[in-house]
């Protein structure tokens, strides 16, 4: 294949990679083979072939066409492509480069190679510094889309660890299995009475489960948005997670959160939480949870995560009683209170005072590091 063309195809694959597609070196070679098979002049077959080759999941599939167009179509077709991964930063089409873009490869390609050399202040570059600053960034101060996206990725990773954990536990359980003698003998009849296949008692598996109770009152409003994102990321990975919002009422939002359409999910959440009055009645909401949901949802491998600042305006004593009865059902109660990160904070709020005796882990959960720590602690005991 001609060298110019080969270089251009390599550039395209690099662009795709810079936009967060998981393509390796091998794909360049395969991309050339696709081009040879379909012919480089047939644009649409080339698009379909490369799309099949270079995409690996649905969101990439939907973004691919824009990237393809912006790279291969003449520069007057301007499609702004935004990078979603934390590494590549934002790729912009510089209007000044439009004229030469045609022969020297479009501007989109430059952003990746040259921005580092020219000393341009890129939005964010890959590296330990970015990661660690994200670790300690208070959730209140995060409003950048890339940062929230990075957080989502981290949470999803946790969720995957939780899934791996279940399989490891189940495999470990196999070693301790017990013979089902009756069944073994029954099955041995076919083989002339020699028990060639042993049957084992099947253990009923209880998978670990997470229940999230998120306070969305006004005093928590700076954080509740992030807890919701965390919940959404978890719900995307795990099927066995149950999310409730509370305020003056308790609402089950798992369905809305797992809505495949993120915009619709947001809309539904807004509708669910609309029209609520001020004040936080944690005790009453916990009572409602215990009465309506706990029997069904909370079992011996359930971790209940409560996120709240503990400012309760309900009847005194109720919170403690209800949390106590919940603690008897659940494996662990984790209380995330963002205020705990503040210097000199002592849990003097009445709600907090009542809750603390029943809480297994009291963590700030105000940034990614502490959230990660709390979640890891859950992993160890589930």
């Amino acid at each position, binding site marked *: 294949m001609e060298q110019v063309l080969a270089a251009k195809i390599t550039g395209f694959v690099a662009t795709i990679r810079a936009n967060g597609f998981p393509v390796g070196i091998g794909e360049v070679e395969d991309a050339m083979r696709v081009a040879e098979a379909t012919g480089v002049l047939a644009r649409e*077959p080339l698009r379909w072939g490369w799309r099949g080759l270079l995409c*690996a999941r649905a969101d990439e599939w939907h973004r691919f066409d824009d990237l393809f167009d912006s790279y291969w179509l003449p520069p007057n077709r301007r499609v702004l492509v935004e990078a979603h991964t934390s590494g590549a930063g934002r790729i912009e089409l510089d209007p000044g480069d439009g004229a030469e873009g045609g022969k020297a490869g479009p501007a989109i390609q430059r952003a990746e190679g040259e921005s580092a050399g020219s000393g341009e202040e890129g939005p964010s570059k890959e590296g330990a510094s970015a990661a660690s600053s994200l670790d300690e960034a208070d959730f209140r101060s995060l409003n950048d889309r890339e940062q929230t996206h990075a957080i989502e990725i981290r949470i999803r990773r946790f969720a995957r660890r939780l899934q791996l954990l279940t399989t490891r536990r189940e495999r470990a359980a196999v070693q301790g299995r017990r013979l089902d003698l009756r069944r073994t003998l029954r099955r041995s009849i076919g083989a002339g009475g020699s028990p*060639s296949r042993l049957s084992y008692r099947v253990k009923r598996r209880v998978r670990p489960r997470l229940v999230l109770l998120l306070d969305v009152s006004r005093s928590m409003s700076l954080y509740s948005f992030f807890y919701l994102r965390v919940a959404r990321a978890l719900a995307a990975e795990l099927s066995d997670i149950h999310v409730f919002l509370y305020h003056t009422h308790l609402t089950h939002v798992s369905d809305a959160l797992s809505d495949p359409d993120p915009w619709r999910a947001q809309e539904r959440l807004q509708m669910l939480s609309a029209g609520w009055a001020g004040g936080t009645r944690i005790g009453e909401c916990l009572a409602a949870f215990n009465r309506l949901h706990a029997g069904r949802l909370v079992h011996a491998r359930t971790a209940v995560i409560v996120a709240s600042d503990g400012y309760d305006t309900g009847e005194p004593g109720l919170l403690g009683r209800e949390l106590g009865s919940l603690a008897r059902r659940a494996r662990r109660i984790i209380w995330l209170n963002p205020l705990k990160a503040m210097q000199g904070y002592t849990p003097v709020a009445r709600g907090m005072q009542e809750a603390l005796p029943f809480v297994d882990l009291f963590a700030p959960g105000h940034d990614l590091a502490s959230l990660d720590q709390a979640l890891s602690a859950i992993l160890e005991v589930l």
Partner: protein
Amino acid sequence: MSTIVDLKTRLADTGYVVERSLAATILLMTDLGRPLLVEGDPGTGKTEIAKALARVRATRLIRLQCYEGLDTYNALYEWNYQRQLLAIQRASAGGQGAMLDDDALFSEKYLLKRPLLEALTEAVAPVLLIDEIDRADAAFEAFLLELLSDYQVSIPEMGTIAARTIPLVVLTSNGTRELSDALRRRCLYHFLDYPSFEKELSIVELRLPDLPRALAAQIVEFAQSLRRLDLKKKPGIAETLDWAASLLGFGISSLDEAGPERIRDSLAALLKTREDVLAMDRVTLDRLVATSC
């Protein structure tokens, strides 16, 4: 180009309508020797791809349905213990125990081939459908990755068995669990969306040739607008076909003539959850019928 169109018409002859982009991807499977991973909502025809492909190539379709806890014994091979035991007993009864050595006992005669091994040992390259791979656990996925890159398996008692022919592998996933990047990268990818009006109409016409054309168009329009509603489980192509068949059974020639009552009775073919059936009140139904006529 011509080969894409050619494959498209050949697939259509077997009753499967594809976009040209999918036909192009299927052609690449053989060119690059990579499996095809198909994702999409339930009912968009993922499994049908493999079936149609097997029909077009006139080869066997070998199907492995994945489920939680699927292991290599059910997916790859297992020894037929009963027959081995019987052989041992027969040999010792006949007094020729020395004749029966290990090699004879662990030979192909006593090997139970499960779908994956079967696909590797076919004389003519079959189509191997690994359905709902996301339901199997991560350990099985890793095992599959190894198999799909080398196309050989090792059986400790027999040695390595290399594939006689490389099967065409189609994997489908519903997104129950996130698949590993390694497996995704190994595969060609295709995302099957709900079909466009034209595509769905041609599918309905192809599958149900007796259906009046006007009714077919109304049915498809109805299904399309149903998908735009806020439903818990959107109807797929299979549901549209079921519904069309049931309307055909009622002897209805157009939706507006049928009246809302009979449409409502037949909706069981389209709406599969209680919430969705409850959400479909009189007003919504009337509006849908009105817009699709």
